[in-house]
């Protein structure tokens, strides 16, 4: 709980809701007749509407990217280290928009929303979403907010994929793209991890084919396992070793399978528990599928340079040395394609021990480079 709001925080913020009634056609062939997007904004839109920055969230993220909802909040928004007065995305300069993607479980229309056709939650009937669909829905939100062109679209991980997709789907509407700890598409190993996570959810007896809400239950164990697998991949071996090592909860070994013995087991169980209490299982399935499906170069025989040729934005790509989920090599694929397509691009490989999660951490070199890049964006 913040006893006082820090000076470099955007302070107390409240989410807003935007309802859309024009149907949104989706890549899966279906469409959403009407839907809501929940979003937050920080800073002020300038008169020429040239200072708007879109924040795209990753797998389990949402609209609450910075600041606090109340003085009782235990933690600020998920990207508070990078958004605020004087921070890399300086809210004294930029007007920041952060939303919860469609299919999410934090306010935007998603599987736990009521399906107007049936009067009960969508559950498994909610259409499968893609990164392109999200970008299209975000463009509509931009229209409503009167933002013709983003000064920058910024995201880490799955958020970086959305930022890249913006430059392909709406080249005239993005001046700068910052793709952090991201990849041009998932590797087989990435998809494999996602599949393990999905199977954990799908085979939970409380899943009920995705209609668990109708049964008044949640597939808690499945979600917990999914999160545990995910969490392992977000950290590096070193980060885990440093945090937990082979430390034990109690002094002796129990020689059974039920007790929590190692510190790392306790940590993973806690993370899994906590997550399964706040996240929707169907949303987790949707988000991992969107990750698996993302492959913009597929439309050009796998030629990413040709795919990015339409882009008009300048790019900043950053990766972290110990990130093995989206390794620096994956970011370099993006950079190489951009240089082959003769785009303006800066690339940094930040030395950081934290693994994939490093993009959320206040790492000095990362924040400094991020600030420098954002500083040079004319508004």
């Amino acid at each position, binding site marked *: 709980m913040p006893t006082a709001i820090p000076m470099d925080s955007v302070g107390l913020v409240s989410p807003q809701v935007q309802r859309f009634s024009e149907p949104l056609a989706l890549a899966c062939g279906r469409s959403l007749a009407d839907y809501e997007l929940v979003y937050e904004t920080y800073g002020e839109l300038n008169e020429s509407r040239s200072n708007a920055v879109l924040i795209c969230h990753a797998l389990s993220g949402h609209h609450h990217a910075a600041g606090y909802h109340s003085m009782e909040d235990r933690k600020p928004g998920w990207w508070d280290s990078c958004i605020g007065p004087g921070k890399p995305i300086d809210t004294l300069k930029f007007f920041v928009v952060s939303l919860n993607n469609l299919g999410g479980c934090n306010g935007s229309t998603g599987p736990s929303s009521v399906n107007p056709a049936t009067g009960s939650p969508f559950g498994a009937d909610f259409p499968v979403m893609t990164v392109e669909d999200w970008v299209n829905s975000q463009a509509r939100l931009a229209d409503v907010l009167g933002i013709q062109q983003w000064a920058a679209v910024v995201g880490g991980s799955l958020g970086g994929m959305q930022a890249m997709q913006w430059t392909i789907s709406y080249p005239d509407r993005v001046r700068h793209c910052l793709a952090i700890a991201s990849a041009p598409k998932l590797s087989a190993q990435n998809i494999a991890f996602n599949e393990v996570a999905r199977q954990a959810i799908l085979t939970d007896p409380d899943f009920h084919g995705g209609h668990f809400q109708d049964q008044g239950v949640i597939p808690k164990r499945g979600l917990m396992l999914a999160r545990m697998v995910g969490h392992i991949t977000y950290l590096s071996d070193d980060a885990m070793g440093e945090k937990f090592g082979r430390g034990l909860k109690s002094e002796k070994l129990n020689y059974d399978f039920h007790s929590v013995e190692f510190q790392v087991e306790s940590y993973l169980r806690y993370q899994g528990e906590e997550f399964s209490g706040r996240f929707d299982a169907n949303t987790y399935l949707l988000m991992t599928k969107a990750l698996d499906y993302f492959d913009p170069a597929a439309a050009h025989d796998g030629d990413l340079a040709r795919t990015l040729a339409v882009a008009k934005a300048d790019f900043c790509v950053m990766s972290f040395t110990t990130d093995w989920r989206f390794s620096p090599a994956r970011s370099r694929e993006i*950079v190489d394609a951009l*240089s082959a397509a003769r785009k303006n691009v*800066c690339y940094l*490989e930040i030395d950081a021990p934290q693994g994939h999660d490093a993009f959320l951490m206040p790492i000095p070199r990362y924040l400094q*480079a991020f600030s420098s890049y954002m500083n040079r964006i004319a508004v």
Partner: protein
Amino acid sequence: MRADLEIIQDWIPAGSRVLDLGCGRGELLAWLRDNKQVTGYGLEIDPENIAHCIDHGVNVIEQDLDKGLGNFASNSFDVVVMTQALQAVHYPDRILQEMLRVGRECIITFPNFGHWRCRWYLARNGRMPVSEFLPYTWYNTPNIHFCTFKDFEQLCREMQVKVLDRLAVDHEHRHNLPSRVWPNLLGEIGIYRVSGPGLADHRVAV
């Protein structure tokens, strides 16, 4: 602008596409962008230099030259520049080969270990030269492959590399009469413009 960059910008045509290996703080690319509509990228590994490039709007890519240029397509740049880095890479011959593959022409500058001061220091003290110009001791220097003009030109001959232009200058990058007359002894820095064996001998319009 640094005096050596002043000289080599003359050899870079307006509007060309340039790859600057070990671009440092990006002065050359920034100047070429502002004055000659040049586009391209700088490769650099020093975090402070990279930060400086970003501050000044220079396209900088964090990349270790010792890992090669395999990520760039052949003939994708008009000019590949490498100033004061040849002596710091693990395999100067390989990087030269790569530069010639990626660019139509290459501009390379390096300190001449054959300069009389180096020869004199080594002869008199029996130790590796340490000077204002080469301010490192042998064990902590980033410069691991010193060569002389003669050595470099020998390598060019072996690799069938054409030397299109050559300047021997002093440490203030003045090309005076003595360094023209006896470059390998009196030149402190070599500035070379070279091309691969495939390229016809042509002069860049300046």
